[in-house]
């Protein structure tokens, strides 16, 4: 592992600089023809995984293990999984998972609805109190949260301190299963199937209290072939159906919609909402929010992956195909909410939705150890940049000439690595 989120096979790396240019936090360099990663700057966005032509970079999420060791387990299913199978219904997917060896397969739709109510309550209350500065920012996308903690500490107070639906369900389901089966809570293994390669890692868990609730995260692409095979078998009546159980909940189209950019805010009872997807677009928005723009917006849904979680790096099918499947579900199920507002209001008032994390702790996650540049360093960098007069070729192994100049001033690399400078004494 070269960062908390990445695995890297050095022998596959050709030193091509694709990843260097793609990284939004400029955390990758090529040194001696191989990629070198800076863990402290990595926000786990997965852009390098997507662009690596050699497949040298991959997610460090745990691979699938035999579940037989588990006394009792359950899998929390990201609704993005349903969108991977255009010819199956969400119920089929849950059934297939149980045939793979999961004791329980848990749908998230109910909890997504609850979360959406909680956001509405929070935004409406904040309209009066103005305790948190506008625009409020969705806490769902872990990459966005890390990006804010790393580069936009001013905006941490804009993040709504609510727990994500998967954290909410994890909290509930472990207790329920323990009660129903008489198994101690610690012996229950909770899995989470996700399109997001950077979920459920120690720091992320701290962000949204997920650590206590989920034990293992599995990429959709890892389980896809086996799951598809099981579902085909069920279809051909080679495998039995299971009786319904109240743990699993019934999927609705709220779930699949959630994976699309704009799915979190769809149908919310808030007027000024906006959904932004794609890491570059998010950075442009965060820059502007920091400059005081969009303060009249009430809530912003950010998703680091283009088109939302359907475009996550660990999905199995193309994001636009998946989107088409989601549209089909919406047509079939409609967008009605199923939960009574009054009931959720009670939970909300008890504080059940809230993350225990304080914004000051989020700042401490920003573990940047790079030493600050002085005024003199900055002047030297400016001088170097104008001396090089380069055209951002990245042949030196840095993403652009300014980053290279900075590396030189920090003493990390020799000026001669720039081919324009190699002949100059």
């Amino acid at each position, binding site marked *: 592992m070269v960062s908390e989120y990445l695995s890297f096979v050095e022998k596959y790396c050709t030193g091509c600089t694709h990843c260097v240019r793609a990284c939004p936090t400029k955390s990758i360099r090529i040194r001696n023809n191989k990629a070198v990663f800076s863990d402290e700057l990595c926000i786990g966005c997965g852009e390098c995984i997507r662009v690596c032509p050699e497949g040298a970079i991959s997610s460090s999420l745990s691979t699938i293990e035999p579940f037989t060791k588990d006394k009792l387990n359950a899998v929390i299913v990201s609704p993005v999984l349903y969108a991977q199978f255009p010819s199956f219904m969400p119920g089929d997917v849950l059934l297939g998972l149980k045939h793979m060896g999961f004791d329980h397969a848990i749908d998230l739709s109910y909890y997504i609805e609850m979360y959406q109510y909680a956001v509405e309550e929070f935004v409406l209350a904040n309209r009066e109190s103005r305790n948190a500065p506008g625009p409020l920012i969705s806490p769902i996308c872990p990459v966005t949260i890390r990006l804010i903690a790393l580069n936009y500490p001013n905006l941490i107070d804009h993040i709504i301190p609510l727990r994500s639906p998967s954290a909410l369900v994890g909290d509930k389901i472990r207790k329920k299963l323990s009660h129903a089966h008489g198994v101690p809570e610690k012996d229950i293994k909770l899995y989470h199937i996700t399109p997001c390669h950077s979920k459920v890692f120690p720091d992320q868990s701290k962000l949204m209290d997920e650590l206590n609730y989920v034990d293992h995260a599995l990429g959709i692409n890892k389980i896809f072939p086996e799951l598809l095979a099981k579902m085909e078998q069920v279809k051909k009546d080679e495998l039995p159906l299971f009786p319904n159980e109240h743990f699993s909940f019934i999927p609705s189209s709220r779930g699949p919609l959630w994976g699309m950019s704009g799915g979190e805010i769809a149908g919310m009872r808030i007027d000024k909402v906006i959904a932004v997807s794609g890491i570059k677009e998010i950075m442009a928005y965060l820059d502007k929010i920091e400059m005081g723009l969009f303060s009249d917006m009430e809530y912003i849904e950010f998703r680091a992956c283009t088109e939302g979680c359907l475009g996550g790096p660990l999905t199995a099918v193309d994001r636009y195909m998946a989107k088409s499947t989601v549209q089909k579900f919406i047509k079939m199920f409609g967008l009605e909410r199923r939960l009574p507002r009054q009931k959720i209001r009670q939970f909300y008032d008890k504080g059940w939705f809230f993350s225990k994390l304080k914004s000051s702790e989020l700042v401490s996650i920003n573990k940047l150890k790079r030493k600050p540049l002085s005024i003199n360093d*900055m002047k030297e960098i400016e001088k170097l940049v104008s001396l090089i007069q380069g055209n951002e070729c990245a042949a030196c192994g840095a993403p652009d000439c300014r980053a290279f100049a900075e590396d030189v001033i920090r003493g990390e690399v020799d000026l001669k690595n720039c081919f324009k400078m190699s002949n100059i004494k």
Partner: protein
Amino acid sequence: MSPLKKCFNVRNRDFIHAGEASIAVQQLLKQMHVDPVLIRRIAVCGYEGEMNMVMHGEGGLYCVEIHSGKIILDLSDNGPGIPDIAKAMEKGFSTASDEFREMGFGAGMGLPNMDKNADDMFIESEKGCGTKVQMVFMVK
């Protein structure tokens, strides 16, 4: 120690790139680990000033000077100048066209906002000779 000085060209009515000078300054300051609250104040002032240059000032030069104890933004534009500076400093006073209002600007809060966020602000303007705005931020 001499300060770090950096200048950016701001082009008339270039809304696609408007704000980029302010963002570049923000990034410089972040690399130097300047206090985030101060960075935000500078970002707000810089952006308001930059938008004024884009909309009213017919473009100009956006300069930042980073001293060890203070940071100075120097914005000079090529526009028509401000005939009545005291009036322009009033909250809600705006000369923005309908076009700019439609784009969400023209609330008449630009200069008052800059004045509020900067530790010191100086405006020099003469009709027909453009406007110079200097904002000073003290670094603790």
